[in-house]
């Protein structure tokens, strides 16, 4: 009575839906190579990857949060605030710290902890009080940026303990460590969301939270976990960025979140929850990174750059829509 015999073609196609942006990436590589000889050099491509490493962790975090049907705008503030507060707990008051003087080795765990705490607080407001995730995390974005500006009084922190600089600036096996870290975390994310019970639970919750609850998934607990993980990843992104830049400016992370959403969505993650993959999100990050790099290399006038940039996002979105076959939300 049923059609179980051969795996029908649609199913096979579905597997490749994650990869709808691969042709776009290929086109960008070809166009880039054509436009500028530097583009296809190992050095330049390594630069692109390193430049995207920190923001890609935010995309990873946001993709998971979106798949679980939620929203987190405040990640971008955590990128600056978590490492900044951690550093201020460590460095002397004369260098802009709080004068508490915790040991310098603690600065990375502290930053991650602060990120996790911000995530947990977001989760608390959104899950416990059932507030709108968009507005809660928008308010938290503003507040957390205030927690960077307030204690530093708008100044850049540049006397940093070496420990926090290490990850973002060192090189392992010929590649910047940040690339290895982001790569490993993406691999874990791709695997976890495809093959772990917890990962699949995110899809169930994002797709229909009531049904997930009725299927025995501890929805609230999983959501807390996702927000906390999101905050922690954002803090790690902040650590990598701090190492790359060598200081924590007052605008670290500011303005990233839109790019993060753009990357996730053109990579096939739905804003409505329950749809998309981490691999897709990764292709989204790469597209955005390559576009930025090419625009820089060919030196498009700064005034018109946004137009080209936005237009490319639109085109990528259309390709992802046409190849994906389904309406986006």
């Amino acid at each position, binding site marked *: 009575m049923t059609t179980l015999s051969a795996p029908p073609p649609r199913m096979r196609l579905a597997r490749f839906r994650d990869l709808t942006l691969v042709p776009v990436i290929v086109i960008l590589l070809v166009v880039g190579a054509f436009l500028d*000889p*530097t583009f296809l050099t190992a050095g330049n491509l390594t630069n692109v990857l390193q430049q995207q490493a920190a923001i890609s962790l935010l995309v990873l975090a946001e993709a998971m949060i979106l798949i679980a049907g939620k929203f987190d705008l405040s990640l971008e503030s955590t990128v600056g605030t978590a490492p900044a507060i951690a550093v201020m707990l460590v460095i002397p008051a004369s260098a802009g710290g709080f004068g508490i003087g915790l040991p310098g080795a603690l600065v990375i765990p502290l930053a991650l902890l602060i990120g996790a705490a911000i995530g947990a607080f977001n989760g608390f407001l959104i899950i416990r009080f059932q507030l709108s995730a968009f507005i809660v995390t928008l308010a938290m974005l503003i507040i957390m940026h205030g927690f960077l500006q307030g204690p530093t009084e708008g100044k850049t922190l*540049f006397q940093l303990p070496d420990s926090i600089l290490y990850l973002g600036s060192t090189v392992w096996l010929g590649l910047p460590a940040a690339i290895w870290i982001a790569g490993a975390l993406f691999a874990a994310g791709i695997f976890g969301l495809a093959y772990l019970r917890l990962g699949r639970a995110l899809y169930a919750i994002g797709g229909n939270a009531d049904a997930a609850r009725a299927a025995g998934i501890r929805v609230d607990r999983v959501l807390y976990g996702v927000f906390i993980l999101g905050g922690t990843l954002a803090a790690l992104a902040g650590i990598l*960025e701090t190492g790359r*830049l*060598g200081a924590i*400016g007052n*605008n670290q992370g500011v303005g990233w979140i839109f790019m993060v959403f753009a990357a996730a969505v053109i990579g096939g993650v739905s804003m409505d929850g329950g749809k998309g993959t981490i691999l897709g999100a990764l292709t989204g990050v790469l597209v955005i990174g390559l576009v930025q790099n090419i625009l820089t290399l060919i*030196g498009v006038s*700064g005034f018109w750059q946004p137009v080209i940039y936005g237009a490319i996002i639109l085109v990528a979105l259309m390709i992802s829509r046409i190849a994906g076959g389904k309406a986006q939300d």
Partner: protein
Amino acid sequence: SGATSGGGGGGKIGIDHPRADSDFWNSYIKYVPQMAGELKVNLMPATNSQNDVAKLVNNVQALVGQGAKAIVMAPQDTGAVANLLQQLENKKIPVVTVDTRPDKGKVYMVVRADNRAYGTKACEFLGGKLGGKGKVVQLQGALSSINGRDRSEAFLECMKTRFPGITVFSEPTEWEGSKAASMLQTRLEQNPDIKGIYMHAGGVHLAPTLQTLKQKGLLVPPSDPKHIFVVSNDGIPQEYESIRKGDIDATVSQPADLYAKYALFYAKAALEGKTFKPGPTDHDSTIIQLPNGLEDQLPAPLVTKENVDDKSLWGNQVK
């Protein structure tokens, strides 16, 4: 790198512009190719980091990848470029920064006017006009910008020490005209006896301030006792226009033309292997020693009704 080397004295100069949304920087951006022509430097297409230090790092890395032998940049965040400067030093690429002075990392030359001096000049002017008493408002830029902070701190410090009778209200406008207008309007409602305004950026603050004063009926000539003394900062043509009309009283002219000229001048000099020493220069400025390099402090004149028609002011040269 596979880049072809152009003519001129020893290699290409890469330049990154900091932002494209203020009149001052846009004038600077316009002067750059013109000055490059005059100085005969081999300038690469400029990049623009849109006020984002992460983008600045990406852009400079790309420029170096494309074969830049010297870099001109204007980091709006002076701390977060430390690593970048270190990288460039390792690659023996000299750096000229414009407008801001990096906190850490080696620079060949900093080309800037003294932003603290702007604040002090504005304070001296307003303090004198108000006779050392009354209330003034300063419309700040973004608090995270070093220049904004310098102007603000110097202004407040000078007011406190030299004109203790003057009350200062500081309004953080984030370089937004809309915020500036609202905050000024509210403050004037609360303190109708405000007599002076210092605007950190004429480009964004000028029109909203004039419009607000006009609505309140306070846009009157200096002879009128209701007149509010306004000092601006930038030196764009519209400010001069307003000074001539008597709508505002003074502005500090940031030398956009000189920024562009001397940035390229020093970048070229660096490629040619020239060195400089602290002391006065041939162009009315002084070079001072910094822990991490040198700084050429260009003159930034206060423009009032008396000298507003001076042809040498860059704001009078733009058409």
